[in-house]
């Protein structure tokens, strides 16, 4: 039966030739191989986001007078609505976490080096898109916390000189955060960002497929010197089956979190009540938020906020271009990117914890 279908496809599309790369693909097998799972787990969680996102779309209604009520409806009236929404929220957070973990594993295993510069570039842009998903999706239930987080977040965009104000008005759909902002964020969240992410994800995966899996430099040297030490496994089915076990574990963790700690809805946003105490952004923006808080309001003659925003913009740009700063020549300054990665990891973790504990 399967053989007949395969034969039929092969006769028309040269199926065996099309699938040959998948059959010949191998994955290096060593003690750090576990880190190779992270990208796949992120991809799996992204798939969950797409599926649960489409399910939520069946009942969600954008608009300042309807959004909160429709999410409430999903959570109280629609059967298992609470679970679908809870999974969407939890999976979003886990995905951002695994995407960050994937990025740092790539940095520390030095997988971004030639010839994989563009894989890194597409990956970092994907990470920014994922954060955009988080920021835009956070507003959609239209609750107080989201309302003020969006107000502060877009106000920070407005601090950028020259282009900031028009960008803020573009994001908000006006001078203030209103129902118009919600409509726009909904459009970004379900149309613009998914479109961009799909294209970049395809590029990212094609590059990974084309260039193969990277080896840490030390192993690369060892295996080149002594080819008999080389250990590899087939991607299909050996690695894929292991990866799917990791997905199964991720699904288990996700299901447990979503069921045991269902995501809160909060209180409906009202632009005419004072901001509640303890307003904080989602944890993945906390390190930037805390940094902005620590910068004095005036540095020399520049506004502290402006300086912070510009600095983060510059760091973000350099981060995208990071692989291009590593030279091919073995020099004594070679380890600096690893040092930078460790510093960035410590900074993000430290500032996040500080931001979480700070009043």
């Amino acid at each position, binding site marked *: 039966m399967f053989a007949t279908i395969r034969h039929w496809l092969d006769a028309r599309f040269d199926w065996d030739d099309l699938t040959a790369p998948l059959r010949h693909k191998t994955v290096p097998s060593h003690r750090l191989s576990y880190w190779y799972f992270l990208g796949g787990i992120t991809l799996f969680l992204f798939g969950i986001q797409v599926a649960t996102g489409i399910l939520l779309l069946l009942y969600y209604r954008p608009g300042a007078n309807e959004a909160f009520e429709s999410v409430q409806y999903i959570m109280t009236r629609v059967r298992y609505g609470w679970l679908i929404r809870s999974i969407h929220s939890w999976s979003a957070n886990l995905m951002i976490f695994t995407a960050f973990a994937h990025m740092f594993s790539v940095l520390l295993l030095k997988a971004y080096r030639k010839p994989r510069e563009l894989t890194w570039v597409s990956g970092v842009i994907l990470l920014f898109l994922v954060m955009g998903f988080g920021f835009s999706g956070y507003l959609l239930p239209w609750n107080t916390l989201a309302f003020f987080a969006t107000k502060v977040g877009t106000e920070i965009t407005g601090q950028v000189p020259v282009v900031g104000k028009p960008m803020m*008005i573009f994001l908000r759909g006006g001078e203030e955060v209103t129902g118009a902002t919600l409509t726009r964020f909904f459009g970004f969240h379900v149309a613009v960002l998914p479109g961009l992410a799909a294209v970049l994800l395809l590029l990212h995966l094609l590059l990974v497929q084309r260039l193969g899996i990277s080896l840490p430099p030390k192993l690369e040297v060892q295996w080149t010197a002594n080819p008999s030490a080389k250990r590899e496994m087939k991607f299909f089915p050996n690695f894929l089956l292991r990866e799917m076990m990791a997905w199964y574990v991720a699904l288990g963790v996700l299901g447990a979190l979503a069921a045991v700690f269902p995501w809160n809805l909060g209180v409906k946003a009202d632009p005419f009540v004072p*901001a509640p105490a303890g307003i904080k952004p989602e944890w993945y923006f906390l390190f930037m938020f805390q940094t902005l808080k620590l910068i004095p309001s005036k540095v020399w003659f520049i506004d502290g906020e402006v300086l912070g925003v510009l600095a983060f913009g510059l760091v973000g740009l350099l981060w995208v271009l990071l692989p291009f700063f590593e030279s091919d020549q073995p020099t004594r300054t070679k380890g600096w990117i690893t040092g930078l990665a460790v510093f960035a990891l410590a900074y993000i973790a430290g500032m996040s914890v500080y931001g979480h504990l700070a009043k």
Partner: protein
Amino acid sequence: MNGDQLSQPEPMRRRVIGIFLGGGLLASFASFIYPVLRYLVPPAVADLGGDEVVAAKLTELKPNRGKIFRFGSRPGLLIMNSDGTYRALSATCTHLGCTVQYRSDLREVWCACHNGIYDLNGRNVSGPPPRPLDVFDVHLRGDEVVVSRKREA
């Protein structure tokens, strides 16, 4: 006739055609993109609030209490001092635009987002706010507390 003679005017002709073609494409592209760019900028909304608004009834507030009222599309803060006089300020924090509140325990105006504090004259006393809050005029009309924008002197 040989090829040399023919090839002379060719590059010129090609360049002219190239300029027309490229220019035409550029112009049509601009005519697509311009309406899109204009579409992305939201139309300005008239501030329907006008210059005056009824912020509260006379009996509504107790001394040393504050209330958020709607001033056009933005929130305002009406405070009743301990001596029964009123004071009205913009409730939009000058730092990052959160809505401030009156703290009767401190007798100050407080922004919960980043711990900004203003005094009752709207002056930024501590925390990150870079500028004072706008102060509005308050007067009583019948049993209504009416807030109006300060007239530009």
